[in-house]
C-alpha cells in the first residue's frame, strides 16, 4: 500500500510538469481551435533565452519577466509573419507549417547553444518539501505556479471581455466578426499568451529534466495527451489531466511487468485513449451539443 501511495505522489510531482505544458496547449487551442506542434520548441527556446540572460549576469526574476515579455512578443511575431499567410490554407498544410517551425527552432537552438546538457536554476530550492522525500520544494513550487496560472487563465476566459472574445473567435470566427471582433488579432494574441505560458512551463521544467534542445519532445506529447484527456476546452481539465498522466505513467512503470522506460509513453497514451473512447470529449470537456 505504501508503495502505491508513494507512486501516486511521485506521479503527481512529475505530473506537474505535464500539467504546466498542458495549460499552454489548451491556451493555444482556445485561441486557434487546433494544436501547435512547435509549442514545445518555442518553450525550450524561451527557456534558453532566460538561461542566456542569467549567464550574462541578470538575476533570476528579472530574466524570468524579460523572457515572458519576449515570448509573448515572439509568439505574436511568429503568428503574424509565418502563420497568418497560411490562414486560408487547408488545415493539414498548416500542420506541416508547425512541423517546419519545430525543425527550425530545434535546429537553431542546437546551433546557438549546442546539445550538451546544462543546469538550470530553480527559485524554489530543491530541499525536501515539508520533510517529505518524494516532493522537493521545487516540485511544490511547480505545482503552486501551475495552479496559479490555472486560476489566472480560468478567470481570464470566463470573466473578462477579452477572454470571451477570444473564445468566440476560436469557436465561430464568422459569427465573431459579425459582432465586431477582430478575429485575426485574437489569434495573434492567443499565440502570444500560449508562448508566454509555454515559457513559464519551460522554465519550471528545465531544473528537473535539464536544459538542452531536445528537452521538450517527450514533455509536449504528454502535455497534449493531458490536455486531450482533460478536455481541450478546459484549463482545469488540462491540469488535472497532467497530474493523471503523471500518475498513469508511474503506475504503469511500476506495476505492469516488462514495461521499462521506453514503453511508458505508449502505455500512457493507450490508457488515455481508452478513456477517450468512453468519454470522447475528455474528462472535463464540454461536449458541444449540435442540432443536426
Amino acid at each position, binding site marked *: 500500500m505504501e508503495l502505491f501511495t508513494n507512486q501516486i505522489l511521485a506521479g503527481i510531482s512529475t505530473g506537474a510538469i505535464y500539467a504546466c505544458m498542458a495549460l499552454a496547449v489548451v491556451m493555444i487551442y482556445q485561441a486557434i481551435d487546433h494544436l501547435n506542434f512547435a509549442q514545445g520548441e518555442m518553450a525550450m527556446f524561451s527557456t534558453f533565452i532566460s538561461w542566456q540572460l542569467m549567464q550574462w549576469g541578470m538575476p533570476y526574476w528579472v530574466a524570468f519577466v524579460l523572457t515572458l515579455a519576449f515570448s509573448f512578443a515572439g509568439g505574436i511575431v511568429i503568428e503574424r509573419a509565418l502563420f497568418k499567410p497560411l490562414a486560408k490554407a487547408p488545415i493539414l498544410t498548416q500542420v506541416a507549417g508547425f512541423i517546419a517551425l519545430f525543425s527550425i527552432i530545434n535546429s537553431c537552438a542546437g546551433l546557438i547553444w549546442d546539445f550538451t546538457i546544462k543546469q538550470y536554476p530553480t527559485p524554489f530550492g530543491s530541499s525536501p518539501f515539508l520533510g517529505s522525500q518524494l516532493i522537493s520544494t521545487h516540485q511544490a513550487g511547480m505545482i503552486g505556479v501551475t495552479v496559479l496560472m490555472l486560476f489566472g487563465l480560468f478567470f481570464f476566459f470566463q470573466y473578462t*471581455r477579452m477572454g*470571451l*472574445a477570444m*473564445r*468566440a473567435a476560436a*469557436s*465561430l470566427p*464568422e*459569427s*465573431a*466578426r*459579425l*459582432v*465586431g*471582433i*477582430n*478575429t485575426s488579432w485574437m489569434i495573434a494574441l492567443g499565440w502570444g499568451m500560449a508562448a508566454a505560458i509555454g515559457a513559464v512551463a519551460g522554465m519550471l521544467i528545465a531544473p528537473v529534466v535539464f536544459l538542452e534542445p531536445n528537452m521538450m519532445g517527450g514533455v509536449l506529447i504528454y502535455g497534449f495527451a493531458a490536455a486531450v484527456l482533460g478536455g481541450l*476546452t478546459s484549463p482545469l481539465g488540462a491540469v488535472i489531466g497532467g497530474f493523471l498522466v503523471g500518475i498513469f505513467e508511474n503506475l504503469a512503470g511500476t506495476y505492469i511487468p516488462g514495461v521499462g522506460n521506453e514503453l511508458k509513453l505508449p502505455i500512457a497514451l493507450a490508457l488515455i485513449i481508452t478513456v477517450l473512447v468512453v468519454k470522447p470529449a475528455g474528462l472535463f470537456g*464540454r461536449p*458541444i*451539443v*449540435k*442540432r443536426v
Partner: protein
Amino acid sequence: MTMMLNVKDLRAYYGQVQALHGLTFSLNEGSLTTLLGANGAGKTTTLRAICNMVRSTGAIEFEGAPLSGRSTENIVRLGIAHVPQGRGTFTAMTVEENLQLGAISRRDKAGIVSDIERMYDHFPVLKERHTQQAGTLSGGEQQMLAVARALMLRPRLMLLDEPSFGLAPLVVRDLFKILGKINRDDRVTILVVEQNAQLALELADQAYVIETGRIVMSGGAKDIANNEDVRKSYLGY
C-alpha cells in the same frame, strides 16, 4: 429623409461565378424593407456583400460613409448588425454570454447591463434559459437569441437573413411582431431577406424582388402584395 444605406451597381462573385449583376437600391432611415426572391436568387449574397463577407465591386454607403475596403468587423462596428442564415449562434456558450458578445465592441458597461435586461423583457424565454448552453435552445428560441444579440450592438441598421427558416408559423408571427416593434420603437432600419414572401410583405413598408442577381421589382410592400402578376411570377403564390 436620410439614406441609411445606398447601394450602387453591386456585383458579387463566388470564385469565378458572378452572383450579383449590378444591384442598385437604397434604404430610407427608419424603414423596414424586405428583399424577396427564389432560392439562389442572390438575397443572401446581397447581405453578405454589404458586410464584405464575399468578393464584390460597386459602391455601398452607410449613413454617407463608404464601406469599401473595410473589414467585416469594422463595418459591424459602424452600426450594422447582421443576423446570418443559420443564426450564427455561439452554441458552446451560454445565452447570456451570447448577449454579452453582441455588445463586445461597446465600452459602456452600465449600458450593456441595462440592455441585457431590456432583451430579457423583449424575450422572456431567454431570461428563463440565460445560463443554458445556447446550442440546447430550440430553433425559435435561437432565432430570438440571434435577434437579441444583434440588438445588443445598438445598431442603426439590422440585416436579417431568412429569420423564418425552419420555424413554426406561429413562432414566425411572434418574431415578425417583435421586429416591427423594434423598427418603430427603437428606430432601427431593417432589411429582411425572406423566402416566406407573404408574411414578409405584411411586415415591411418597402420591398425589392430579386431574381438571378438582378432587381426585377421594387415598390411599396402593399402594392407588391396586391399585384397578382408579380406574386405569381416571382413569389410563387
